[in-house]
């Protein structure tokens, strides 16, 4: 018989084997496995009120948990061109199940506080891609944060987000902004929280995936110390200097390629729709989550400068980073 008890999925927080501690997406995470590309907090005090426990489990335990929870209804999937599944997300009464080939299988309790991870034995660091791209953002969202589809850097103690359609060069621009002195806050997904109209963002993993050619375009003294590759992925994944604390969101740039543009143009925007379309986990469609996204969008539109960035077809990520870096430095 199916059970909705999240405790059946993963043990409660605490235990002698939970030796690893890290922060990401506003979560104070304890785990029985070291998680590459996440930073440990500076002290032993909880890094915020949101805690999560990630426990690595074996294949049999995971199978038992999936069977016991039972009845996972598909809520999201992504497939390769061949039709093979790339990512499957299911939901039961008490948990979410996330699976990706060679990335492992994860169960996240409905309150986002417990994560079971069946990590492939020979996966190297590769499994963290799914952890960072889905599992932890889901846990953060279930704990009340709003995850936006955007990258983010910090400059002068303030955060600046970059939202763009895939292929625009967002991650490459982040790389070159960091080379110019910014700190990485997050690539691709940024966790936000609104308090009294002010928008706070929380750092994610220290890693960015970019075209290897972009690393070659960095000044020789700014090349990342750690860069790695993964199977079936043309990108280079680089470990970058990253922010370690929650930061006020001071601007959001909406990047778009404009073949008709002759120069790169940054223009203040009041258009709410790109923000409304920036929900990261679209399958979280509960009333509370939908309302939270609308509130977050309204808070950003009302309190944070929004800038439309039209990028000519021949502009490189280096050009875009130079323009954005200058704009960020001049802001407020």
């Amino acid at each position, binding site marked *: 018989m199916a059970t909705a008890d999240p405790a059946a999925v993963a043990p409660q927080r605490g235990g002698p084997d939970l030796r690893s501690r890290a922060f990401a997406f506003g979560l104070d995470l304890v785990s029985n496995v070291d998680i590459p590309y996440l930073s440990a907090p500076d002290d032993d005090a909880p890094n915020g009120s949101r805690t999560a426990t990630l426990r690595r489990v074996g294949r049999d335990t995971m199978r038992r948990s999936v069977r016991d929870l039972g009845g996972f209804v598909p809520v999201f999937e992504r497939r390769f061109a061949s039709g093979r599944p790339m990512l499957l997300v299911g939901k039961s009464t008490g948990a979410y199940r996330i699976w990706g080939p060679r990335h492992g299988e994860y169960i996240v309790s409905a309150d986002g506080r417990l994560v079971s991870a069946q990590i492939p034995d020979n996966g190297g660091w590769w499994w963290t891609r799914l952890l960072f791209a889905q599992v932890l953002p889901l846990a953060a969202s279930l704990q009340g944060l709003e995850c936006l589809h955007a990258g983010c850097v910090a400059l002068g103690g303030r955060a600046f987000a970059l939202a763009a359609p895939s292929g625009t060069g967002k991650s490459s621009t982040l790389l070159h902004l960091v080379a110019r002195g910014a700190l990485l806050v997050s690539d691709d997904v940024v966790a936000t929280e609104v308090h009294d109209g002010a928008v706070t963002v929380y750092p994610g993993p220290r890693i960015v995936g970019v075209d290897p050619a972009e690393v070659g375009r960095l000044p020789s003294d700014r090349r990342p110390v750690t860069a790695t590759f993964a199977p079936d992925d043309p990108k280079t994944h680089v470990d970058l200097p990253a922010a370690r604390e929650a930061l006020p969101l001071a601007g959001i740039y909406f990047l778009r390629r404009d073949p008709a543009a002759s120069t790169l143009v940054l223009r203040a925007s*009041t258009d*709410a*729709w790109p923000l*409304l379309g920036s929900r990261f986990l679209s399958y979280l*469609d509960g*009333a509370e989550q*939908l*309302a939270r996204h*609308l*509130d977050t*969008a*309204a808070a950003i*539109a*009302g309190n944070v400068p929004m800038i439309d960035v039209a990028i000519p077809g021949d502009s490189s990520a280096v050009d875009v980073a130079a323009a954005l870096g200058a704009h960020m430095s001049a802001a407020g």
Partner: protein
Amino acid sequence: MTMEERDLLDCSVVVPKNVVYREFAHETVILNLDTGKYHGINRTAARMLDVLQQSPTIRVAAESLAEEYAQPVDRIETDLVAFCAGLLERELIAVVERGDG
């Protein structure tokens, strides 16, 4: 205006609990939490929605808006009924018949 539309004039308008809206710079965005769909309305329409909610009937709202915008009441009534019909179709408002007309 059809008979059905005329009947609407004596109804009151309420925004259901499953509908929320927030003001942005140039528009108000209405969200139906059941469907997850956003709808944008301009400032004039947002003002119409505010007055509709504060008024006992659509007819009274039309009188108030006609005075505010210095327009003939019958024209505002026609606009309001069309506006409400559109919101009803998208399940963004509900109308309640007034027993006392």
